């Protein structure tokens, strides 16, 4: 963005006419680009419009090729949310997902911030070893951890509890790495000012580093929320009773279960499942995009 502004100011210089010719040619050459983007854009939007339209269409559960409901109605939602009828505690699934994701996101934010602060700003023996352990744990593929975790929680007798749904997410190496990078960039002078005041490390973390890192910590919490909310494999094997399922697992139960042929109800469930994520997305779109961009660039 900064470079764009600099280029913009220079165009008002001596080469203005030549620049203008460039700009004109440039907007013409943009036409094919725009055409391609529009085609892809339509492909991106089409499934969602169809999902929403099918969810709100009372068509005996059958799908149509129409992009607008032929018989607009809330019938699918009413049928789905009526536990007695559907046999599926859909609202419970939704609340499970939201609760688990919120707790995990807050937990990750606090735990990772503490750890990252120690690694980036405190001087202690073994810091290098801890750092390498954290970073190398980023490389372990999830499948190698998943079954062992299942066995371990089985052994602990914690399967099918909220503890099982939350605890494995709370040590997030990626978050430690993200905050570590940020804390390294905090000017030394700020830290020295608090040290002169005689503050211990906890006060320093709480009074200085937490407020400074609010933005990036919030991004980490949001990414964690999205990751946990949309996670599928772990809640699938860690839970076994209908009341403990999350919405993501619930969709699969409904999709390959009794509603296999009821397109309307299944799409209604999909729409319901997306609502919390959509709220997060609408309010934090820019922050999420920046977070993903930063995570990728900082990752290697």
């Amino acid at each position, binding site marked *: 963005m900064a470079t764009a502004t600099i280029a913009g100011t220079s165009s008002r210089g001596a080469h203005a006419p030549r620049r203008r010719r460039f700009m004109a040619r440039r907007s013409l050459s943009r036409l094919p680009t725009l055409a391609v983007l529009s085609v892809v854009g339509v492909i991106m939007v089409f499934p969602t419009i169809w999902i929403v339209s099918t969810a709100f269409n009372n068509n005996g559960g059958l799908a149509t090729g129409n992009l607008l409901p032929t018989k607009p109605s809330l019938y699918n939602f009413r049928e789905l949310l009526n536990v007695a009828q559907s046999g599926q505690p859909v609202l419970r699934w939704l609340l499970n997902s939201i609760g688990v994701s919120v707790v995990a996101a807050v937990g990750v934010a606090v735990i990772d911030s503490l750890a990252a602060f120690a690694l*980036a700003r405190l001087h202690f023996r073994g810091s290098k070893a801890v750092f390498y352990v*954290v970073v190398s744990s980023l490389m372990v593929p999830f499948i*190698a951890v998943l079954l062992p975790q299942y066995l371990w929680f089985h052994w602990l007798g914690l399967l099918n509890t909220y503890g099982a749904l939350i605890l494995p997410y709370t040590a997030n190496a990626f978050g*430690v790495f993200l905050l570590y990078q*940020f804390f390294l960039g905090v000017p030394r002078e700020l830290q020295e000012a608090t040290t002169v005041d005689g503050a211990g490390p906890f006060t320093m973390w709480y009074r200085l580093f937490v407020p400074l890192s609010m933005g990036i910590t919030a991004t980490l919490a949001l990414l964690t929320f*999205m990751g946990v909310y949309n996670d599928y*494999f772990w809640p699938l094997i860690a839970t076994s009773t209908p009341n403990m399922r999350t919405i993501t697992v619930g969709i699969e139960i409904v999709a390959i279960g009794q509603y296999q042929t009821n397109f309307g109800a299944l799409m209604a469930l999909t729409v319901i499942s997306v609502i919390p994520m959509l709220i997060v997305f609408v309010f934090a779109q820019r922050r999420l995009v920046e977070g993903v961009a930063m995570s990728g660039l900082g990752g290697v």
Partner: protein
Amino acid sequence: MKAGTGPASPGPAPSPGASSRRPRRRRLVDDLKAYAFLAPYLSVFILFTVVPVGFGIYVSLHKWSTTLGNQGFAGLSNYATLVEGKGYYGGEFYQAMWNTILFVLISVPLLWAIPTALAYAVFRSPAKTLWRILFFYPSVFSVTAFGSAWGLLLATNGGAVNAIFHTDIHWLTALPMAWISIDLATIWATMGFAFIIMYAAVTQVPRIILEAAEIDGARPFARFRYVILPLLRRASVVVVVIETIASFNLFAQDQIMTGGGPGYDTTTISMNIYNQAFSSFDIGGATAAAFLLAIILAVIAFVQLRVSRRGA
């Protein structure tokens, strides 16, 4: 991008007043304080990652039933069965592995090329925020949500796509369409992540270099191919490594859309492992398979990083 500018050398910055001549007791107190900060992270990490993986290694060396538990020491036979391709799951391990590699070979290049092309297109286009939202928003769908939606969109009978085009294509029940459908759904739903990374990288390309190329008469495609693309190397490596690992883990959308069919043709290694653990209740063998996959993945990621560094 602050994260990218961090110093390459790990390890802590020396805190003020931390000299090597501190009294021994003072130094111990400082160490303890630092570990108090790390305690929550390390205890969760050890309790729910390190210990389970250690336990998993133990289980993989036993005949271990998902429901009945330990059935006796088995040595390396769980691994040997898989490698030799013996037994029901041993034989299918190779088939599932090949299916997964096929998916990776198709999806990873596409999940790099399409987001990269789109990133450059958006960079050159007005209304950047609109495009950014349009290409990223499917990330709000969970894997089961977009899997079931695409399963219905592409259903042979009553599916929206066949209805709109008045076709009778077996999108999900015949090869090669089943793979194409899974790829299509996966790209639609997950490319936003790669797109954002590539877009961020494209915007980092110095404007002056681009304008120099433009004034020299380089066409947009030439500018992309010879100016921008070489500068996207680092971001590309990130995307390729992330997408390779993600594609190797293909599970839910596949399960929902095709159920691994037709026959066994779209059954992936994750599905194979899952079935072994929770349909045949042989979690000892399944854990061995998971570790074998983990080793293969680690080797591939290592090679990818190595190759990309050597070429740089």
